[in-house]
């Protein structure tokens, strides 16, 4: 095995390089950050949001009427190092999702797993269709 000498080492500044040229990664959240998927059922809503590198301490979820707002901060690691490649984006973010119906605030479940936020919401009782009893004349 040939070891890099001092001289040719200077030639390979980006020692870790992509094999393909123009391999720009997928930029998520073109329509906002974080990117989201919304699944709807008759009485439940599931939201998935991609939040790699965000901890639950740096994440806030708020419900107001029919709007869920996901906000927080993706913090940049601090340290003594030189970047050879920099594609990740850091900073504060906020994104609101309009729901199709009102949900129970108490029923909201939020889990952060493998960099994905899972939000489970249940339709509020007053948004559910009600069967109206027809009174019979005596």
């Amino acid at each position: 095995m040939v070891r890099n000498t001092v001289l040719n080492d200077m030639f390979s500044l980006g020692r870790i390089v992509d094999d393909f040229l123009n391999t720009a990664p997928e930029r998520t959240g073109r329509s906002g950050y974080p990117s989201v998927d919304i699944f709807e059922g008759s009485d439940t809503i599931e939201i998935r949001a991609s939040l790699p590198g965000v901890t639950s301490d740096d994440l806030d979820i708020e419900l107001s009427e029919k709007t869920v707002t996901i906000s927080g901060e993706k913090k940049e690691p601090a340290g003594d190092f030189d970047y050879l490649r920099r594609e990740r984006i850091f900073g504060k973010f906020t994104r609101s999702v309009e729901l199709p119906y009102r949900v129970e605030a108490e029923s909201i479940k939020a889990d952060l797993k493998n960099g994905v936020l899972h939000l489970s919401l249940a339709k509020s009782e007053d948004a559910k269709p009600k069967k109206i009893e027809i009174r019979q004349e005596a």
Partner: protein
Amino acid sequence: MRHEQENSHNERILSPITDVYETGDNYTMLMEMPGVEKEDLNIVLEDESLEVRGTVQAFSPEDLNLKYSDRPAGSYYRKFRIGNDIDRNSINAKLSEGTLTLTLNKAEEVKPKKIEITAH
């Protein structure tokens, strides 16, 4: 620029967003692969090529319909070329918060060394 390919299952191949930084002792690669479980990660170093694959398990519940989506769907793949200044036997991989951290330690020969100055 968007990089996407199709694989045999017609699923899109996503190139994970990657940062690489260098310290005196190592190269650290941070790759964003949200939704990938540890078991679904595959990292192979062969000669100068480092290939990283991460499969995302599809979420398709019966009683729910996907109404809106701007999350890129597919699995992750990216190939890197690695120089010969790393210790191939001491590569560490850690997956947390949807981010894979690969630490490639430098070979002893290329690590910065403090040179002692002998006084006469």
